[in-house]
């Protein structure tokens, strides 16, 4: 036998099949190109490291509290604002705006994508205007929206909706158009009705694209929310931060940022959770 390098593996891990414990497990270890098995809560590592860096540099005095408040000050501020009810009040109104904008944006984006993806007439009518809308930064529409709708909730929700529907439309449309024609043929040979075709082939086939669009949309919703709340609002997290700026309260500003960050993280995690559930049939690198 040739002396091929055989690497000895460490002892069998305890959670493995007990029948195998103690038996030698010697195998050549080829290098793997995939990222390996998924580990629970691994995504927390990056944010935790960032938090640790902030705490350490504040504690050692490396970070001037006038530049960035200490983490514990921010936590204390959160406690005070929670105690007098301002935080939850502003959070509720912000969440409501983002939620409504997201909801309408997702519905409009998905519907337009379906109409444009399933019929040539729909595509001719819808795709052009959406591409033009995409070229215009969503926030550039705010002056016009203020003139049309004033500065009340309608204008705020509409701004968010306009920012949300574009990525949902684009990705869902791309997903739809990417559905293999072979499946369309199959649908014809098994005699699917148009409704069943949409339910069984089109929607599941477009779902990966839809979820990708959803993740962009969720992030986009928070971005639009910040802008509309800091330009003209008398409530919401953005208003709270804007007010804090005029009084030089760094701690409240940082708290607002932290709240936005946490909201963004939670909503992205929620989308990814539903994505994994809905797309469990996929075999991908993400695992």
């Amino acid at each position, binding site marked *: 036998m040739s002396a091929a390098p055989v690497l000895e593996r460490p002892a069998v891990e305890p959670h493995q099949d007990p029948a195998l414990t103690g038996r030698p497990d010697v195998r050549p270890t080829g290098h793997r190109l995939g990222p390996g098995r998924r580990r629970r809560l691994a995504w927390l590592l990056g944010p935790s490291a960032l938090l640790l860096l902030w705490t350490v540099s504040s504690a050692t005095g490396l970070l001037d509290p006038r530049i960035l408040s200490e983490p514990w000050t921010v936590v204390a501020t959160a406690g005070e604002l929670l105690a007098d009810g301002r935080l939850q009040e502003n959070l509720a109104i912000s969440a409501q705006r983002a939620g409504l904008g997201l909801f309408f944006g997702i519905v409009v984006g998905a519907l337009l994508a379906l109409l444009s993806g399933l019929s040539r007439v729909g595509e001719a009518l819808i795709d052009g205007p959406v591409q033009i809308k995409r070229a215009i930064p969503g926030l550039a529409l705010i002056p016009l929206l203020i003139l049309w709708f004033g500065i009340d909730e309608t204008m705020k929700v509409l701004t968010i909706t306009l920012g949300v529907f574009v990525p949902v439309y684009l990705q869902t449309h791309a997903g739809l158009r990417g559905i293999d024609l072979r499946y369309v043929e199959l649908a*014809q040979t098994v005699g*699917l009705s148009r409704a069943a075709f949409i339910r*069984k082939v089109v929607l599941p086939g477009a*779902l990966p694209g839809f979820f990708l669009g959803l993740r962009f949309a969720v992030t986009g919703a928070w971005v639009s929310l910040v802008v509309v709340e800091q330009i003209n609002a008398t409530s919401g997290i953005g208003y709270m931060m804007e007010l804090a700026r005029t009084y030089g309260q760094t701690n409240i500003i940082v708290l607002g940022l932290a709240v936005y960050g946490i909201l963004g993280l939670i909503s992205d995690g929620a989308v990814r959770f539903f994505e994994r559930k809905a797309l469990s049939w996929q075999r991908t690198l993400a695992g």
Partner: protein
Amino acid sequence: MAAHSGGLTAVAPSGTAPSAVTSPGGTVSVRNLIRSFGPKGVLNGVDLDIAPGEFVALLGPSGCGKSTLLRALAGLDHDVRGSGVISVPERVSVVFQDSRLLPWDSVLGNVTLGLREHDAEARARKALAEVGLAGREKSWPHELSGGEQQRVALARSLVREPQLLLADEPFGALDALTRIKMHGLLQDLIAAHRPAVLLVTHDVDEAIALADRIVVLDSGRVATVRTVTPEVGSAVDAAGHEALRRDLLADLGVEPVASH
């Protein structure tokens, strides 16, 4: 009109291939079928009849139009120009070279696809048991081997009790051992369900083993038709088997090698 007369994605432009009509007796008849992609004729006047329960293999070199003929019978050529009269039975099933299972649906969901009857699920379970896949109903398609996926595709086509089964090189992508097993399975299934079959293949031995009649297509025309008696088709060492094989290879323009 046949069940598959309309496209699901777009309206066919005028001047394209006319749809098939449903034949009353369950027979297949094709008259003077012409199909062309661009200026080049792919089918140049094909006539073909298939009796109920008859197994016809369509043999021919690449590009001779055999898949085009099968797709015309399946009603899958909305955008192809042509003329001719096709009549097919009401219930037609198609098996493709790829299993064409929807990756986002379970094995059971793939078999019941498009079934409207209330007992669809029970029938699908029975069909899966028939192809030897009982217990795999909840699996995702990607969890099955290539041969198993093609067996699901067979179950999906047979659960509809087709009067005509159209098979476009269904075993072409399988390894040789799996292919032999699939031949046996297909023969059993056909004996049980008695559909007429049109099998497109480029495998002479497969055609002899399975078919009652072999139609050789060349340059968009029926070149020769050869009948396979049950005795000849039953075994490779049956009398007349080698002669038929040699004749078919000659029809296809292949000089047989002395031994292999």
